[in-house]
């Protein structure tokens, strides 16, 4: 009887509690983290504690996921998302956010507290990871190796969870296998193996401008001194942004990178998935997003130009490219790009986008002219500042540390300059769009709620318009959660892709024609 009563007492309660197994699993995971914390405090731990901790974390996530999703019918699993403490900005969410933030601060600015010692034996958690690092790359670990390992573990373990959660959706499954593969192989193993082979550290996953250091002086030196391999790396880096990116984005939209390949996106889509609904959907934050992300793109262009200019300045006559030719080349390229967009795509830009583009273009050219005339660019200083404010503070501390508060794509949405480049391509030169299904939308809002990029998907769907937004990373979740089968991610002919005058199917056809005319004429509501 006691058993039944126990069950009874649970009925009628909102689905906000974790089950016993989920609590135990959470405990296991945190125990693993606790051991790692002990190692930071230099508590002497035998070597197997590395595997024990990593294993406990992975086991915790896997057991949790199994309990949450296995044995239940496949389908959308958002019950209680806004009731659970951890996913509705409760105390645990804030606690986790603060812990993560502290971790990032130590990682970026105080690696010595993690035990990193570039001039001798590592201690602490870095020492705990030394054997693994030695095994893979033949070198002792650094704080970055520790971070990379934990990062990869997170993508794999939470990737498993995501796969279970969306096991009815093949698009989500394939996409998740892809990010897991690219993280493990390309972002984690390949760079370490390159080091083992005495080649420069190179992660082909991170494309400039996300990898803002790719053209830094020390990196260029590494590439040039590594001979052919270095040249291939440099060439691949250049091709990635100027060739591969535009082509793939043309065919598939920015999703090929942001939710299939990128490591930041990979973490957001796996470990960050439980927080996707926390993104702000207001028009205000859309405005902020557009200004912020493009400002950062401008900064990275200015910074990178300065860095390369400084490099050429410091090595006069060493390379076929002179510093002045470089500046003229950059200015010429940007002018062509700007003119092209203004001539051919003027109509597709909103008013503020045009003003912004002109303003930024003038600023960049003025700064380049300044470099040219003074012959000095403060490249190192700019790089340091950019690295501090954008590379570390924004992308790490705010971007990941605040997952449980602002959602999982804060960096991708407001900060990532790569996303800005891909977004422009997606908006102006791509075949990708999300189509809507006739008149079937019931304005329920699931799509908008679960869009991690804060796109108000419903505002398009309920008007029958395609969604063509520069920020859309093509995660496909809006389509997955839609209870009426309204949304579909598609690549197709560019004609009619942006259809602001669309009407909802279902009514009298003459009336619909009239409404379409009226919509064209007024462009509102």
């Amino acid at each position: 009887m006691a058993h039944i009563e126990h069950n009874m007492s649970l009925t009628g309660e909102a689905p906000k509690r974790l089950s016993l197994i989920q609590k135990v699993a959470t405990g296991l995971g945190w125990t693993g983290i606790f051991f790692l914390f002990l190692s930071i405090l230099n508590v002497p731990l035998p070597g197997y504690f590395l595997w024990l901790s990593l294993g406990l974390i992975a086991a915790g996530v896997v057991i949790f996921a199994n309990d949450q999703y296995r044995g239940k019918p496949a389908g959308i699993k958002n019950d209680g998302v806004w009731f659970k403490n951890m996913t509705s900005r409760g105390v645990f969410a804030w606690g986790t956010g603060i812990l993560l933030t502290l971790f990032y601060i130590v990682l970026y600015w105080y690696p010595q507290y993690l035990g990193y010692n570039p001039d001798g034996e590592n201690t602490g958690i870095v020492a705990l990871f030394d054997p693994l690092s030695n095994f893979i790359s033949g070198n002792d670990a650094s704080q970055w190796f520790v971070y990379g390992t934990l990062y990869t573990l997170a993508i794999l373990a939470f990737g498993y969870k995501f796969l279970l959660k969306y096991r009815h959706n093949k698009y989500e499954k394939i996409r998740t296998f892809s990010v897991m593969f690219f993280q493990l192989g390309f972002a984690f193993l390949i760079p370490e193996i390159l080091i083992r082979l005495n080649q420069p550290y190179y992660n082909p996953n991170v494309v400039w401008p996300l990898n803002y250091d790719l053209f830094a002086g020390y990196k260029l030196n590494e590439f040039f001194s590594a001979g052919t391999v270095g040249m291939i790396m440099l060439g691949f880096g250049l091709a990635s942004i100027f060739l591969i990116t535009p082509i793939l984005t043309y065919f598939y939209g920015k999703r090929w990178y942001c939710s299939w390949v990128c490591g930041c996106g990979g973490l957001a889509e796996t470990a960050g998935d439980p927080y996707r609904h926390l993104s702000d959907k207001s028009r205000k934050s859309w405005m902020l997003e557009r200004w912020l992300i493009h400002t950062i793109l401008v900064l990275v262009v200015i910074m990178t130009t300065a860095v390369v200019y400084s490099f050429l300045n410091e090595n006069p006559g060493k390379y076929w490219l002179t510093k002045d030719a470089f500046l003229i080349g950059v200015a010429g390229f940007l002018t062509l790009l700007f003119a092209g967009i203004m001539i051919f795509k003027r109509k597709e830009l909103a008013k503020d986008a045009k003003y912004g583009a002109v303003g930024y273009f003038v600023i960049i050219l003025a700064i380049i002219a300044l470099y040219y005339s003074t012959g000095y660019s403060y490249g190192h200083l700019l790089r340091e500042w950019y690295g501090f404010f954008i590379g570390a503070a924004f992308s790490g501390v705010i971007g990941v540390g605040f997952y449980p508060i602002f959602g999982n794509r804060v960096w991708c949405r407001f900060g990532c300059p790569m996303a800005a480049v891909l977004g422009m391509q997606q908006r102006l030169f791509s075949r990708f769009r999300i189509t809507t299904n006739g008149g079937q939308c019931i304005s329920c809002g699931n799509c908008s709620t679960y869009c991690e990029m804060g796109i108000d998907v419903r505002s398009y769907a309920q008007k029958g318009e395609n969604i063509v937004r520069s920020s859309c990373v093509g995660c496909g979740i809006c389509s997955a959660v839609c209870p009426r089968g309204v949304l579909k991610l598609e690549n197709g002919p560019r004609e009619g892709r942006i259809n602001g005058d669309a009407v909802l199917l279902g009514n009298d056809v003459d009336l619909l024609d009239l409404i379409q005319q009226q919509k064209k004429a007024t462009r509102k509501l």
Partner: protein
Amino acid sequence: MQEHVVIIGNGIAGITAARHIRRISEKKITVISSENKYFFSRTALMYFYMGHMKWEHLEPYEDWFWEKNRIDLKLAYVEKIDPEAKTLFLAGNEKLPYDQLIIATGSIPRKLGWEGQDLQGVQGLVSKQDLELLEKNTKNCRHATIVGGGLIGVELAEMLHTRNIPVTMLIREDSFWRNVLPQKDSEFVARHISSHGIGLRNMTELESISGKNKVTSVTTKKGDQIETDLVGLTVGVQPNIAFLKGSGIETDVGILVDPYLKTNIESIYSIGDCAQQREPKPGRRPIEAVWYTARMMGETVAQTICGNPFKYNPGNWFNSAKFFEIEYQTYGNVSATPPENEQQLHWEHRDGKKAVTLAFEKGSGRFLGINSFGIRMKHEVFDRWLTEQRPIEHVLKHLEEANFDPEFFKRHHKEILHSFKDDLMNPSKPKPQI
């Protein structure tokens, strides 16, 4: 002075009308509701209760939208209409004059006069207030009975299921939603609902509800008694028109409107769930209480009000729903009980989560409609086929064109085609049990 258009009801019908009027005119627009100041999606109430969304997510427009588009919102209850004086009487002795009036007051849950229907713990599910009540009524609820096996009923079952409340559904017909779905579709859906542990009692009607203040049990017409803490009344909805008594506006079950959606009184229109067509289009019901038709009436009446009189002439029928995990879409007409000249083809996937039924006219082969479960279909394509009166062969041959499932999803059109071919060749061959 611009004309003043007043709209009672800020549901999808009223709000669509307001938006469209604003797009093409400068009229003064006021929308009144006593439920919630801002428009929200009634269809998403369940997601709020289940914790998928917060209330703010249910509101499709941010608050600035209304001011920017000069649509005045008023939280008030209309007690009375005086068409002579063109004035509304609001609760609290307030008056509001209008030049043109649109009544879009929606529905209320239908109650069939059962004994005990007003006890505590007995409720329908239509309004925000109903949802708040449900939150109260489900505290410590050990068992719930849902009366009526329709779309709102199954939504309510899913909602209660997330709170671990055992649910029994009383269904008048021989199977779930059988007055709309053909037998095989209905049984297919019923199997899925049952697999969640929902008790479906077919051919069972409610006799009475008992309890002192609060419900403690229900009795069925067969005489069975079920102990229960909550009774959900979902035997359909009815137009919310009680406040119109004595206004001179002609009503039947709903507010009677002509093809221009106008009532018997000049300058007063009615749209959405509360409107009843005097001359419904052939094949359509006089009251269609769904989101889509409410929206379309709003689109239509806006033109009429702004001087482009348009008749309400909805296109091919379509609808959608979700039964726990299984999405349902329908285009055209698939009869629950096919008449003599209608033939149906039914396919089910072996996993029991996907099914398709196509209906066509015997003899001519004209395609009549489709029910699709677990496979998303393109509205635009089926709408075109229906309008062009395509034969069933055409539909079968081009089924893939109509698929709207996400990329990489398994396509079933070939399997469906083969199964249908089989059916057509050997109509009497018994099918293997699934």
